[in-house]
């Protein structure tokens, strides 16, 4: 269980551990200053923090749920929860990693409670998708499904992702979609790097089996 922790700890309040620097270019000193101000109730400072990480947090939750509305609610709730729990944040880790853990925990709890697989509500592909070299290469390969459209491919891919367990889906999302390092993922998922690699390998194998028609 990836989100296991001390029994006394609330599921949505991650521990405050030393961590790697966030992938964004935000200066840590300035970030800590914003955190200090936000802790005193300065909502303008917190607004600044939200703007820095909103896209990454939303994207992670969205790729986990495959539903825009759920992702919107969960991402907002994660930031609200983070604000309410700011007093427990001592600054030992980056705010980025800390809020990431809150979002991931909230999302996994939500997915456990969502008994039936919810309807997918996918975001539209942006204009650049048709010109992405990886996708162009994939579509132009002589595969039995080369005539498939991007929209159909998107739907099949998301359906396959939803078949993975939450820890495996999270590993693929954070590494293969969002480009985080194994070390960063280990901090977020609260496990060691070996476990991350193992989950990633297994998840890829599963996806490969689900999407075999599109990968020949």
């Amino acid at each position, binding site marked *: 269980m990836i989100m296991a922790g001390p029994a006394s700890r609330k599921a949505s309040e991650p521990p405050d551990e030393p961590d790697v620097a966030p992938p964004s270019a935000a200066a840590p000193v300035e970030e800590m200053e914003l955190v200090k101000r936000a802790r005193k109730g300065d909502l303008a400072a917190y607004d600044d923090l939200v703007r820095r990480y909103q896209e990454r947090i939303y994207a992670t939750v969205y790729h986990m749920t495959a539903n825009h509305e759920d992702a919107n609610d969960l991402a907002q709730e994660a*930031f609200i929860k983070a604000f309410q729990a700011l007093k427990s944040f001592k600054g030992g880790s980056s705010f980025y990693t800390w809020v990431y853990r809150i979002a991931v925990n909230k999302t996994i709890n939500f997915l456990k409670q969502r008994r039936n697989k919810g309807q997918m509500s996918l975001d539209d592909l942006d204009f650049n998708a048709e010109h992405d070299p990886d996708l162009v290469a994939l579509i132009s390969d002589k595969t039995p499904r080369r005539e498939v459209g991007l929209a159909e491919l998107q739907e099949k891919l998301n359906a396959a992702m939803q078949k993975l367990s939450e820890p495996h889906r999270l590993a693929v999302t954070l590494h293969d979609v969002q480009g985080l390092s194994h070390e960063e993922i280990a901090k977020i998922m609260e496990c060691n790097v070996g476990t991350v690699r193992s989950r990633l390998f297994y998840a890829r194998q599963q996806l490969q089996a689900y999407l075999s028609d599109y990968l020949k």
Partner: protein
Amino acid sequence: MSMSEDTENFEQLRRLLALKRHEQPPPGYFNDFSRQVVLRIRAGERGGEVTILDQFSWEAPWLQRIWAALETKPILAGAFGLVLCSLLIAGVVFADKADVASGTAAPSLETASLPIVQASIGAADQPFLARPVSLEPSSTGPIDAAKTDELLLNAFGKLRAEPASLSFPGAR
């Protein structure tokens, strides 16, 4: 399955997963995201829904700063109240003086020449049916409401109520 085959297949999969990076929320979605978060935090602190006042105060930060200053500094709040009261009293006093000044300068209503409406009522026994009230106001002049009301009330006073007698054929 060999390791090289795995790597090759994962490369294909990696290309396919690149598609996920192009899934984007509606345009402008993130412009409003942080604002929504802050509004929900403010609403949560008050234990209620997001009000129009919350939205307005967030969109006008100067108002938020003034309000925060008034909340934290009672002296400032007192001074602000004093200024408001002074302005109110000054306004009332100035308005009275202005009324007095305009009363001496402007002609009174009684002396002003207004068009008089002539109304005539017909026969007293059938005031409404025989001859309707004829009012000939000018298109721009006001109707003398008091006079017409008095005439109508007099006409009502002459009306008599009589018991109705109804007889139907075949009725006992």
